């Protein structure tokens, strides 16, 4: 056991810190859930890509640096420390890419990964449907063989697709065997959002911005080489993505330790009100515990162990930690917390709204608790 980073990791940290200090935009970019903000964030992805900082853990041939999980964690720490922009590419680079690296063909990786890394093609996730949210296996959108036998015809509706209003591509699961039930007969597709028959209807969120969208598929033609993994194996491919979403790659601990550090500073600046002491201490500890847990998991992963249903513990913990950090900050801000100000106080309010989505997306925390109970504790399915 050695809980320090090796000298070469610290050297990498210094390099990342230097680059970020020189390149992170001094003023926050406009919200990525607006057309203008989306393009500003895309340009930032391009800036990172040009100096090989956008996907440091990927193979060199796709735009990465072929670095290990600990270097990725170090980069993330520096990224959040630098208060760098949100990653508009996150659905692609953190969720689809690990799945594609595992299940994709050589041709698919060469075609899709470099533009994803460069921000030229931004991806959204087409999983949930109006009647298939927590019950994801209940999806009804379907794919049938086309008339010429060299592809598929997609019909149906997806919803709550983050980044869906502006994205170029969508990864989604469709039912390819109409007679199969639940987890069987599903297939994982890669779909161009400008294909004929794809209709996008942005959904205003509770903050008024259009972060997510409904996507309608009206006889959309998709060629065979846009199937990821085997036909009919969509559920197991999707679970690899879900593992990334709940486990290590979507939410690096730096996001929470950075926010918890700011919370401790806010508490000090407010004179250390005793009524907030316990909540601030808990937020600081939970963020740090998540960081330690991530190092622990990363050690296992670096030794070839898979992350199993423990990923569901993770998802519950980071999402609830995020809500606690931000609600504690709003308590400290007191009567001013509701004001839509720019700068520090407004960031806490924005962060709070964003955090509140966490226990819902990536599989609700109720579903995660079922997974923990059934798969880690062996309790019978209901």
């Amino acid at each position, binding site marked *: 056991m050695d809980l320090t980073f090796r000298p070469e990791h610290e050297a990498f940290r210094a390099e990342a810190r230097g680059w970020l200090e020189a390149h992170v935009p001094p003023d926050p970019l406009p919200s990525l859930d607006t057309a203008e903000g989306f393009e500003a964030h895309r340009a930032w992805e391009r800036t990172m890509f040009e100096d090989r900082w956008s996907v440091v853990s990927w193979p060199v041939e796709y735009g990465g640096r072929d670095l290990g999980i600990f270097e990725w964690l170090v980069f993330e720490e520096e990224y959040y420390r630098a208060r760098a922009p949100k990653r508009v590419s996150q659905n692609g680079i953190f969720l689809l890419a690990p799945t594609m690296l595992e299940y994709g063909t050589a041709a698919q990786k060469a075609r899709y990964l470099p533009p994803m890394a460069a921000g030229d093609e931004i991806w959204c996730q087409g999983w949930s449907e109006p009647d298939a949210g927590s019950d994801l296996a209940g999806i009804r959108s379907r794919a049938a063989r086309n008339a010429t036998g060299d592809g598929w015809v997609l019909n149906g509706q997806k919803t709550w697709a983050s980044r869906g209003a502006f994205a170029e591509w969508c990864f989604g699961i469709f039912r390819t065997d109409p007679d199969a039930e639940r987890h069987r007969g599903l297939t994982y597709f890669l779909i161009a959002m400008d294909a004929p028959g794809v209709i996008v209807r942005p959904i205003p969120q509770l903050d008024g911005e259009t972060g997510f969208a409904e996507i309608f598929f009206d006889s959309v033609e998709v060629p065979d080489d846009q199937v990821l993994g085997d036909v009919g194996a969509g559920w197991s491919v999707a679970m690899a993505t879900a593992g990334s979403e709940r486990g290590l790659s979507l939410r690096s601990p730096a996001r929470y330790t950075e926010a918890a550090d700011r919370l401790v500073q806010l508490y000090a600046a407010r004179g250390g009100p005793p009524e907030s002491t316990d909540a601030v201490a808990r937020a600081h500890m939970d963020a740090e*515990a998540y960081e330690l847990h991530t190092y622990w998991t990363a050690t296992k992963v670096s030794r070839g162990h898979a992350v199993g249903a423990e990923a569901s513990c993770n998802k519950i913990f980071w999402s609830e930690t995020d809500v606690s950090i931000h609600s504690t900050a709003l308590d400290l801000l007191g009567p001013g917390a509701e004001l839509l100000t720019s700068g520090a106080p407004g960031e806490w309010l924005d962060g709070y709204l964003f955090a509140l989505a966490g226990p819902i997306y990536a599989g609700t925390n109720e579903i995660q608790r079922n997974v923990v109970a059934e798969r880690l504790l062996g309790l019978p399915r209901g």
Partner: protein
Amino acid sequence: MDFSFSEDAEALHQGVRTVLDTECNADALRAFELADEAGRAEASANRWSVLAELGAPALVVPESAGGLGLSDVELVGVLEEAGRACLPEPLLETAALAAPTLAALAPDPAAVAALNALVEDDAVFAVGGIDVTHHGPSSPTEVSPDGMLRTPRVVGSRDAALLLLACRDAESGWQLHVVPATSCALEPTPALSPVRDLATVHWPLGSDTLLAYGVAAEAVVSLLADRAAAGTAAHLLGLAERMVAMTAAYAKERHQFGRPIGSFQAVKHHLANARVALEFARPATYRAAWSLATAQPTLSHDASMAKAMASDAADLAARVALQVHGAIGYTWECDLHFYLKQTWALSRSWGDAAAHRRIVLAHALAR
């Protein structure tokens, strides 16, 4: 960065688990509670000799002094097992508190003699005279009218050959002594947990028993408090693991409405919450052990964080375990109460979660 245990540490951890599964299972705890004083002494002596054979009490004592020469990183898994088994003997006090403290104070003659007794004679140690509050350590030791010192709630004195005792007065500060049991008068104090051995100890203040005083003693006491917080956190992890496992097993067996109660989401979510709390208290506790082993400047923060998180995790596990067991869990017939009572005791011993949260925050503010 390497957050893993060595093969030796894993083997030691497993070895202790295997031994305690036979020597200290619920039947053994039940027999222990029902035994008379002589019966308890015999059971404790037998278990201690098994633990001593594994090298557990002297695990962190240097090889040159006859120990295993390992560190707190190897010890933490052993302490977890002591917690999981609800071990009645003072392994924490002997292996995690007395042993490293005495080893660090060598070549002081009193420390060397006491350490020899620990290694050569398998001497058991009791510890008392230090309480933890959010202001730091304080001492409950008082001077009695007869001139003897009186320390309440000393842990482990029944089997102890030697007692590590602290006192503090406003003028000269802290003193730490190692006192032979033969010089002490014990006044056992009944406690809720049948495996907790608490006593008020009356002891003479002498220069021959003195290990440290003044500024040096303050540093030793502060380190002892951190060691105790981290070691108690490890016990609480073990207790939480035990209670979650036995409750999950019960929820699979117990049927209501024609189904196992573990198939109901209300029950699942209770247990999942306890499992999640345990999952995140664990690396925090292992980090505290590493900080002890490597004398990190963040040790006090790390030990307090471990104690706060493990106390909360074990308290939640206890609450959930009792609720899911229902009325049967409230009976003496069910094994659960051994682990519940020990959890309620340890989660508040060496500083409760709220006190440690305040210590942690004070450190975070000073960063």
